[in-house]
């Protein structure tokens, strides 16, 4: 089961990475990059790094890629000619994909309704310290100084971004 999952996820990640590099339009690159990030997050879950998987989705797929999208929209590098109303085919695809997503979420639903799939599995992470607890312990003891320096780096990046992105005024 794990082997099959690995090969499927690796194929999705690699294929979307190929599209990131070789597609012409920047907007398609960004959308496939999001798919790559989600694929990598699922691989992290497969590697039992649940905390990093969540961070990957929130930081990369959520924040960084939205930043890319904003800049591409802002620079308006291409004329988008989207059709006015969604075609029936597109509606069909949307509905099918939403249903597929609901099926993916189904194990989570069954956690709340235990009678559907028998006993809900519980307590796999409760054995020993959780992944997040291990990372936090390491981060706030051994790597406390790098952690603080990282926050200074982020502050410097914020200030630098604001200074560079500011509208230049002629003196």
């Amino acid at each position, binding site marked *: 089961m794990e082997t099959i999952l690995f090969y499927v996820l690796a194929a999705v990640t690699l294929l979307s990475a190929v599209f990131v*590099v070789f597609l012409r339009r*920047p907007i398609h690159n960004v959308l496939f*990059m999001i798919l790559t990030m989600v694929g990598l997050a699922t691989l992290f879950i497969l*590697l039992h790094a649940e905390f990093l998987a969540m961070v*990957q989705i929130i930081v990369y797929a959520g924040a*960084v890629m939205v930043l890319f999208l904003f800049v591409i929209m802002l620079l308006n590098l291409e004329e988008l000619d989207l059709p006015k109303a969604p075609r029936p085919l597109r509606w069909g695809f949307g509905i099918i994909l939403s249903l597929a997503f609901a099926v993916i979420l189904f194990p989570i639903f069954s956690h709340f309704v235990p009678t559907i799939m028998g006993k809900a599995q519980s307590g796999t992470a409760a054995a020993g310290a959780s992944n997040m607890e291990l990372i936090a312990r390491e981060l706030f003891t051994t790597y406390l100084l790098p952690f603080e320096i990282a926050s200074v780096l982020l502050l410097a990046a914020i200030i630098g971004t604001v200074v560079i992105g500011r509208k230049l005024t002629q003196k």
Partner: protein
Amino acid sequence: MVTLEHYLVLSALLFSLGMVGVMFRRNLIVILMSLELMMNAVNLSFVAFSRYLGSIEGQVFVLFVMVVAAAEVAVGLAIAVAVFRERGTININDISLLKW
């Protein structure tokens, strides 16, 4: 059975793809995205090593890589916007001021 080598091969392939993007694409934004791809490939091998060597430190390092990557993207995109404002293009063939 998925071994460490599987993840390392996948990570190497992703890294190579990112490198192809950096070398052959001319769009500054796509180049930044390929850099992200390379960093994510490194992250994947970090997490794989962390899992198969039974040490959590690899995952801590991934967090730091993510911090640096986020800072790099923010500054890089700000530079892209500034260059576009100045030159009206982000094709790197037209922005070769420091090249001799």
